[in-house]
C-alpha cells in the first residue's frame, strides 16, 4: 500500500513567532539574532521581508545590517519557541499518532491510516495549515508525498503558507529539474563531487549509473541515488519512539577567548558537569571522552581518549578532558569555543571488567556525591551548589549549560543500509 507522508515546516519559525507577539515590527525586516555580548551575534532566522533585503541565516549582525540598514534585531526566546513547537505537535496528533520531529520547527507525519477519517493527504495538509495559522498565528508549508525525502522536498518547494503534492505520477516532472543540492544529505562536500560527474539536478542523479555513484561516494551515493528515484522506505517513527542515545555532548562559545589553562579548566569543568548530569539522567556511563576545540581563527579539531572504567562522574570526565587537552593539543592561539562529548556509552548497571589499579570504592562514593548534587540542584536551582573554581571567573562559568539546549537531529537512525547488494 502506498504511504501518505506529510512534512511540515514552520516558516521562518523564530521570526514569525516574534512578529506575532509584536505587531509593530510585523511589516518591517526582522531578524532573530543571538546575543552579541555573549559572542553569539549571528542571524538565527529572518522574516520574508529581511530575506528579500539580502539578510541570510548565519550572517553576523553587522553584515546583516549592512545588507539591510532598517533591520529590526530581536533576541531569541527559546522557551516560547519550544512551547510553540509543542502546540504545533498537538495539532499534528489530532490527525495521526505517527509524528517524527526533525528539529524544533519541522516534523514528518504518516497519515496513511488516517485518510479514511480525514481525507486525502492534501486535504489533511490543508486542514493542518489552516489550523496552525488560526490557532498559532504562524504559517506553515507542507509537502505531501509517498516517501519522507520527497515530502521534505515538497515543504521546501513553495513557501510560505503552502501545500505541495509530489505523487508517483508527477514527481519526475516536478522534482527531477530541482538542483541536486536541495536533496537531503547533499551538502557542501557532496554537491561538488556530483558536479564533477555532470550531475546538477535530482533527475540527472536518478538516471546516473548506480555503480558509478557507488564508486564515487560509497554507500551514501547509493542511498542518494535511491532517494532521487523516490525509493525511500524509511518509516515515520511513532510519537513515543526514542532513538538510542549514541553520545552526550555540550559545547560553548565563551564570552571571551580562553587564553590560559585555567580558563580551559573552568570551561571544561562546567561542560563536564552538564554532560555527566545528562548521562546520569539517562542511566548511562561513557567509556570515551572527546573534546572539541576551536581557536579565534575558527580552526577546529577534535581529540579523544578512553577512561579506565565506564563513568558518569563529572570529575573523571573533566579530568580526562583536561588531560587530553594538555597532551594532545598545542595551545598557541586563544580558544573561542570548546566542547566535551561522552561517547562509547553503556548502561550504568552493565558488567565491567574489574581492574586492580582502579579505586572502585572511591568511584562509588563520588557517584553518591554527584547524585546528591543533582538532587540539590533539582530542588534549589543549578547555582545553589557549585565548585569553588566556578566562582573565580563568572564570565566563563556564569550560565547553566543544560539550559537552552536544542539538540540536532538526523534522519538516519543507525548505520546506512541500502538495498541492492551494496
Amino acid at each position, binding site marked *: 500500500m502506498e504511504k501518505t507522508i506529510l512534512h511540515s515546516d514552520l516558516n521562518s519559525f523564530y521570526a514569525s513567532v516574534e512578529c*506575532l*507577539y*509584536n*505587531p*509593530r515590527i510585523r511589516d518591517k525586516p526582522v531578524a532573530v539574532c543571538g546575543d552579541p555580548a555573549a559572542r553569539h551575534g549571528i542571524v538565527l532566522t529572518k522574516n520574508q521581508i529581511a530575506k528579500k533585503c539580502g539578510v541570510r541565516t548565519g550572517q553576523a549582525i553587522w553584515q546583516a545590517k549592512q545588507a539591510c540598514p532598517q533591520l529590526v534585531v*530581536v533576541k531569541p526566546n527559546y522557551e516560547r519557541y519550544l512551547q510553540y513547537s509543542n*502546540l504545533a505537535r498537538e495539532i499534528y496528533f489530532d490527525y495521526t499518532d505517527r509524528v517524527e520531529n526533525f528539529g524544533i520547527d519541522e516534523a514528518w507525519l504518516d497519515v496513511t491510516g488516517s485518510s479514511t477519517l480525514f481525507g486525502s493527504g492534501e486535504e489533511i495538509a490543508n486542514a493542518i495549515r489552516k489550523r496552525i*495559522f*488560526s*490557532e*498559532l*498565528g*504562524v504559517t506553515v508549508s507542507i509537502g505531501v508525498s509517498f516517501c519522507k525525502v520527497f515530502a521534505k522536498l515538497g515543504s521546501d518547494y513553495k513557501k510560505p503558507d503552502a501545500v505541495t503534492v509530489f505523487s508517483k505520477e508527477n514527481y519526475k516532472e516536478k522534482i527531477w529539474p530541482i538542483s541536486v543540492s536541495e536533496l537531503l544529505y547533499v551538502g557542501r562536500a557532496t554537491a561538488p563531487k556530483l558536479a564533477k560527474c555532470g550531475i546538477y539536478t535530482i533527475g540527472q542523479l536518478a538516471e546516473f549509473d548506480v555503480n558509478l555513484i557507488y564508486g564515487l561516494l560509497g554507500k551514501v551515493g547509493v542511498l542518494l541515488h535511491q532517494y532521487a528515484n523516490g525509493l525511500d522506505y524509511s518509516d515515520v517513527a511513532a510519537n513515543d519512539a526514542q532513538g538510542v542515545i549514541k553520545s552526550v555532548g555540550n559545547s560553548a562559545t565563551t564570552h571571551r577567548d580562553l587564553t590560559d589553562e585555567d580558563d580551559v579548566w573552568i570551561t571544561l569543568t562546567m561542560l563536564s558537569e552538564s554532560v555527566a548530569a545528562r548521562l546520569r539522567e539517562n542511566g548511562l556511563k561513557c567509556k570515551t571522552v572527546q573534546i572539541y576545540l576551536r581557536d579565534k581563527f575558527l580552526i577546529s579539531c577534535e581529540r579523544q581518549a578512553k577512561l579506565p572504567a565506564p563513568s558518569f562522574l563529572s570529575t573523571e570526565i573533566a579530568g580526562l578532558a583536561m588531560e587530553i587537552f594538555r597532551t594532545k593539543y598545542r595551545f598557541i592561539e586563544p580558544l573561542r569555543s570548546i566542547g566535551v562529548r561522552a561517547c562509547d556509552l553503556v548502561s550504568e548497571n552493565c558488567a565491567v571488567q574489574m581492574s586492580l589499579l582502579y579505586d572502585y570504592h572511591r568511584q562509588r562514593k563520588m557517584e553518591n556525591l554527584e547524585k546528591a548534587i543533582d538532587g540539590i540542584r533539582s530542588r534549589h536551582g543549578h547555582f545553589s551548589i557549585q565548585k569553588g573554581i566556578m566562582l573565580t571567573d563568572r564570565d566563563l562559568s556564569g550560565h547553566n549549560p543544560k539550559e537552552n539546549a536544542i539538540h540536532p537531529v538526523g534522519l538516519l537512525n543507525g548505520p546506512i543500509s541500502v538495498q541492492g547488494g551494496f
Partner: protein
Amino acid sequence: MVADGRTSAKNEPSKKLVVVIAEFSIDGVVKPRMLVWEDGRRFEIDQIASMQKCASLKSGGRGLRYTCRIRNRWLYLFREDDTWFWECAQ
C-alpha cells in the same frame, strides 16, 4: 465601557492585560465571570458565545479565545497560559 487596560512588557506593547475572576468547573473547564479594571471597577460577563483556540494577530499572542458580551458590547478575551488579555470583537 471599555477603557484602556494595562499594557504588558515593552516587547509586547499592544497587549492589553486584564484581571479576570473565573470559574473552574470540576471537569476542568475555565470560564471567565468578571473583568476587574485598572481603576477597580468590575464588569460582569453576561454571556460567553464561543470558546476556541485562536491566535490574536491584533494584540499579538494566542490562547483560548472567549467571545464575551459585557453590557451589550462584544469583546474577545484571551487566556494565554496564566494571563488574560482582551481586544474588541469586530
